């Protein structure tokens, strides 16, 4: 018997999870649709029925990150309840299979459903807003690399990994505690970024986004800004680092599940 991963066992577990949580998920989709309709409807109403693609893009990205993080942070909520935790941990499936069911739902399925739901709600609002209007609103294009939504899926992996880690690491108030840790880390990164770069590069009077390009002022002319960023094959360093961080967080969540006690 394969004690690490068995596809048949995983599919049975996935089916069990879907049947037992299906109603909650359907209800959540209905609430999500209503929320998006309300939000976009309000934006259109206050903007004289004008809903730019950029606004749709921004709401899509932030909506996915925030709602996705909230949804993910309750993935392992059963482990916070002793009764449910016993039932979950003693079910004959491996830790990896149990982890993957939550991962598939919170990462893969969520993105598909959120995108579908958002597009549907957005389309409805645009149809209503365009009634008898000369300049028609256009539905935003997720494939536009100049817009935020294009990168939202990649960024969602970071939010998902963080939220999934918090979901299993904390016993209660998962979302609040995870968000708190996230912001503390963010502030720490921002705070150490400049002095660290100064230490490495030796340039003072510069600004830098954590893991981004640095912008030192020239020494001779204090009014000019430079942009120092990796080029060539090093260009993707940030993405690689981000992927590594995401994988580490997912792995950390998985090992935490293995160590979970009731």
């Amino acid at each position, binding site marked *: 018997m394969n004690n690490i991963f068995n596809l048949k066992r995983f599919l049975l577990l996935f089916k069990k999870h879907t049947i037992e949580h299906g109603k909650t998920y359907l209800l959540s989709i209905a609430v999500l649709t209503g929320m998006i309709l309300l939000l976009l409807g309000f934006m259109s109403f206050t903007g004289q029925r004008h809903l730019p693609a950029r606004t749709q893009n921004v709401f899509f990205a932030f909506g996915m990150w925030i709602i996705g993080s909230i949804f993910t942070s309750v993935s392992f909520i059963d482990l916070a309840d002793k009764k*449910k935790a*016993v039932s979950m941990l003693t*079910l*004959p*499936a491996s830790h990896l299979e149990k982890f993957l069911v939550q991962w598939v739902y919170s990462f893969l399925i969520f993105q598909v459903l959120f995108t579908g739901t958002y597009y549907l709600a957005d389309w409805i609002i645009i149809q209503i807003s365009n009634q008898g209007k000369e300049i028609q609103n256009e539905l935003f294009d997720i494939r536009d690399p100049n817009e935020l939504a294009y990168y939202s899926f990649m960024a969602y992996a970071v939010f998902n990994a963080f939220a999934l880690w918090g979901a299993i690491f904390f016993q209660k108030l998962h979302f609040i505690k995870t968000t708190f840790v996230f912001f503390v880390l963010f502030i720490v990164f921002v705070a150490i970024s400049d002095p660290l770069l100064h230490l490495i590069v030796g340039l003072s009077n510069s600004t830098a986004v954590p893991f981004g390009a640095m912008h030192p002022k020239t020494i001779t002319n204090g009014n000019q800004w430079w942009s120092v960023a990796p080029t060539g094959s090093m260009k993707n360093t940030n993405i690689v680092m981000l992927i590594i961080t995401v994988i580490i967080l997912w792995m950390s969540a998985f090992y935490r599940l293995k160590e979970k006690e009731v």
Partner: protein
Amino acid sequence: MIEISHLTFGYGKAKLFEDLNISLKPGHIYGLLGKNGAGKSTLLKNIAGLVFPWSGTCTVNGIDADKRLPSFLQELFFVPEEIYLPAVTTTQFVKNTAHFYPKFDNSQFTKMLTEFDVPADKLLTKLSFGQQKKMIISFGLSTNTSLLIMDEPTNGLDIPSKSQFRKIIASALTDNRCIIISTHQVRDLDNLIDAVLVLHERRIVVAKSMDEIAERVHFGIIPSGADYIYAEDSMNGLNAITLNTIGSYSKVDMELLFNALTGDNKTLIEILNKPGHE
């Protein structure tokens, strides 16, 4: 079957067990007794891999419990004191869960459910606590796992159900199966268990079969002035545990035995644990 070796465990800094050693064999129904807070549930959780030993090991069929491997879990069913059931009907629950247990017997389950008078088409969340408990006990028995652990299973059961419970458990025991029942209501285990484990002050003070206990000590009413190991006043005189010197077997009075052992009766503990009579 179950080998607990030098197990030490606790919560926070407080030790609950220290250097615990027990060996449990298949074909028996063990009653795990102990006062409230003695650590009965925690010991069961150690066996089920729900908590991890500080030191020592706990293995079931040679597999470390704390790894919670599927091969280990499919041979174990744990009925906790407080149960969680999803918002599905019994029929749906069986359909979604039974296939994780290769030896699950659906006809056995249906029969038990009928005996317990639990409706199969009602949402599990709409059943009373007693009915939920009867459903999960029936399910656990029908999985036919080699190890069945039940923590305070009779809590929430009415009097007729308790007697049905005893009957059903007795009928579900096979040579390959080990059943552990923990309770502080010792009378619920009357005529059911064939071995007893008494947990007291961080250790197992007695782990013996009922036959062994009856072989060594005698339970019954004695006249006042007679020698005894432990006694309690009763309507008819002194209800006592005496040394079995004549080899006459008496029915083990679980409550009396429990009170004597958890009351630190060292003579009784010594007599029951004396080697050479096994």
